[in-house]
């Protein structure tokens, strides 16, 4: 029946819209019992990928760090980040940024000639 089909379509569409809205809102309204959003960051001499990530103030996030070559560091004092990234084993750190701003995060484990300029930005909004 066309009416039934229409009602059914509306219901399905409504569910999809609600799901989509929840998906969009999820990063901003993470519930306490939900695991933090995971952000993947890859290190290799002498850069991080991506070069910039954006986090929300007060919202926990897990940074999953991997290296494609040698041991690297991942350091940003103001965000409480001080990690070592070993080859073959992802390093996970969970932080809850309390301060907004742009934070230059560096490799602080000497990794070779270009080490001094190996960094990325973490933007907290």
């Amino acid at each position, binding site marked *: 029946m066309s009416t039934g089909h229409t009602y059914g379509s509306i219901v399905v569409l409504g569910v999809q819209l609600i799901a989509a809205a929840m998906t969009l809102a999820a990063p901003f309204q993470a519930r306490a019992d939900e695991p933090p959003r995971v952000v993947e960051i890859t290190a290799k001499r002498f850069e991080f990928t991506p070069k910039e990530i954006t986090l929300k103030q007060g919202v926990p996030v897990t940074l999953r760090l991997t290296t494609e070559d040698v041991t690297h*560091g991942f350091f940003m*004092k103001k965000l409480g980040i*001080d990690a070592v990234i070993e080859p073959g084993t992802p390093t996970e750190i969970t932080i809850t940024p309390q301060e907004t701003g742009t934070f230059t995060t*560096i490799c*602080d484990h*000497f990794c070779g*000639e270009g080490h001094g*300029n190996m*960094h990325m930005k973490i933007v907290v909004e």
Partner: protein
Amino acid sequence: MSDRVDRRSFLKIAGTTLGIGALYSVAPLLGADGAAGEVARRLWKKNGERLKPFSFVQMSDTHVGFNGAPDPLGTQAFERAVDTINGLRHRPDLVLVSGDLTHDSEKPGEQALRMRRFQEISSRLKVEAVHCIPGEHDAGLDGGALYRDVFGPTYYAFDHRGVHFIGLDNVSLAKPEVGPEQLAWLKKDLSRFPATAPIVVFTHRPLFDLKPEWEWFTSDGDDVMNLLAPYENVTVLYGHIHRHHEHTAGGARHLAARSLIFAFPDPETTADKKPLPFDKDQPFKNLGLRIVGEPGARGAAPGRPTIDEVELTMREFSGTVGVNQFLKEGGY
């Protein structure tokens, strides 16, 4: 006069910005009551320590092996510094080198060749001794193994004419830290000194948070300075930042030496950590190898360069008061 021997009353350190990176003079302070000579004689009699004025030089970041943009000069600035030191009218007793003697290389055997080249050039120095500590470009990739083979321990202490010198390693653990083993050694080393002992620490990275985003810090630098806190005459000399910088905290004075390869900009005014561009018309600009001052300037005798005096740690004579008491007759 009191029998109590108080070094603080007559032994002082003054520094000169020569950009070699810096030359320091240690001289007995002649007290207004003329008693200092008597104090010196008593100390000599007591422990055999003859106090004579002396000077030393701090050089830093020679990066032997680096040869390219932004500085195509290779070892020319380093060699010029050696010649400058050898040409000083009053030759310093010691030269301290605060790290990054060589630029790192992963080509087999190359780093060792660069270290030998450093030794070859530094051996021309006509001084009593050259004391080095490593930078991350010397020791960050192999935990300091090659450095120890070529130069010896990465941290150590020695005494020279009443001043206690401590070389600290904040690079060999790959991260900017001194580490618990070295902290325990430092605590033990310091325990035999009275609070008034003149202490000069030389290390590579700053022992305070100068600019962590540029890796200009030592993560356990506060632990080092806490161990040094009871001592009243502490000067920390470091390199790494390739520019002159002064900082005072907790009674200790921290001074960075210029590099002998290229200069970094002022992080307060520059966002990016990029070396200052090379100026072919002024190839040694910002490396500090300029002649200090100009003959005849500021009342100096004709034909002699003026020098900018910097107090290091002088508790009794803060500011510029007393500085002129340490200027040696004749200058450098």
